[in-house]
């Protein structure tokens, strides 16, 4: 059985990998490869956010009664990350390399910070408080 921190952290790393592959393709001006990798990243990221916002965060809030604490901060950061993803979509569509690389550096830093908060604090707190964590992860793996 896989724990919440283990599974969700692995997903962060998978997203990082797709993200860096897209960025490297833009740096080499290989726009078609960049688009493929970027789209895969965007799909993975969206799925990851949904798993958190629709299932894990409500479970955590229910278990702890903390509805305006860490999960609220994470939701707001998700919203900011989505806005940056939209900007990157536009830069990619316009094939604007400098704009893309400036935005990708920004998104990378933001994601890494966001991931650190989740991996260092929120996921361990979830593991402690969400009783059926391993079953939830098993469902994520099956989907």
């Amino acid at each position: 059985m896989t724990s919440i921190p283990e599974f969700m952290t692995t997903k962060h790393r998978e997203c990082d990998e797709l993200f860096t592959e897209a960025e490297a393709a833009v740096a080499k001006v290989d726009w078609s490869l960049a688009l493929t990798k970027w789209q895969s990243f965007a799909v993975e990221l969206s799925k990851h956010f949904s798993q958190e916002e629709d299932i894990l965060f409500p479970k955590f809030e229910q278990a702890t009664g903390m509805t305006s604490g860490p999960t609220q901060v994470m939701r707001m950061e998700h919203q900011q990350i989505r806005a940056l993803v939209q900007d990157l979509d536009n830069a990619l569509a316009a094939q604007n390399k400098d704009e893309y690389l400036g935005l990708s550096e920004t998104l990378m830093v933001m994601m890494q910070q966001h991931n650190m908060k989740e991996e260092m604090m929120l996921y361990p707190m979830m593991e402690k408080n969400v009783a059926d964590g391993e079953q939830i992860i098993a469902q994520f793996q099956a989907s």
Partner: protein
Amino acid sequence: MNINGLSFNALPPIDLPFRFFITAPIFIILCAFLILFSGETLWVSRWQPSMLALTHGFTLGFLTMVMMGALLQLLPVIGGVGIARPRLVVSVCHSTLIIGILCLMANFIWPSKLLTISSLIFLVCSIGVYILTFTWVLVKKLSQGDSIIGFRLAMSALFIVLLLGVGLLSQSIGFLSVNSIGKMLTNSHALFGLVGWGSLLIISVSFQVISMFHVAPSFPKLISRYLPSSLFFLLIFSIFQPVFVVPFIILIHGVFALSLLLVISKRKRKIPDSTIRFWQLAALTLIVLNIFYFTPDKFLPSFIRQQKTLLITAVYLYFYLVAVIQGMLLKILPFLSYTHLQQKCLVNFSAMQTIPHMHKFLNKKHGQWLFYLHFMTGIVLFYTLVIPSTYWLLSLLLLIEFSWLLYLMIKVMRLYFLTLTKINLSVNE
């Protein structure tokens, strides 16, 4: 709404680290003028009064100044907790540090009891308050073990550096008599300062920031867990057995350099990046220093042999410590600016579109120029140590390099405050 639910958000106000950062290059600009007006005599030996002023300008004025500012931000990011009453602590530490360093540098050139006592009071006040405040946080149980253990050791080393420095200054005005062991204390003071405070902190920070900024794997567990403590224990032993211990300290740096190169080579983000170049330069420097240190003296030309210790120290300081600090500044300045502005937009989402991206804060090409300037200045520093008549060129290059760094800092900070004004205006609308 409680948006501070995560202690991770305990970032101190951005103007506090900025104060330290912006002061640091000004000290090197001051050092450039010191080199210009001291002439060739400065380079005769490490005991020259102007040379002592110069080394303290670099180590306290630049390295310690930046590191004290950077720790203010790194501790909440890596450890999850910030210091208490940061504005008060920084106001005391930053102002007294500037006065203390200026008094100390002046005291080396124009020795006087008044300047010695002033440097003692201001530096003890500044560094002492800083150590106390950070120790209060570092003794608590914090997350992210390996880097935090390194921070604790670096802070302990800074305390020892301060203690030895106070002892040496007190001796110079007759408060304390340590004549018989004066040279040993000076060597320990320098070793704890460069290796214990400077290098240990850099090594500990590298464990965290390289993987964070460059999507690289973690350092091998054996390195991140045992290398900082081994280095610290060797430093303690070096007080009693310097001749026996120093080669091991050099070797450990070689091990760190190899693992650093390995981790960097395995990074997933491989786009051109000046910070990575600074890290690579630092790692290659440590490997070359190992080769140089362990080469028997009979194989070295006499003009190099005569200056071996000074050359090793200068290269370690400039191509390793200062290089990493500059590389880190290239990342930290836009990163902090963006992060602070982004945090302000958490509850005001629409204002987020006013935040410039990281490369608008600091242009990548401008970072590259800093790297080239640093490399050229380092080569001329090496050359000047052997042939002092080129001191004027070194002075000129230092002036250009650190004026450029100062300009980059001012540019980032200006854009930060302009954007902040826009965000505040959009909140009030």
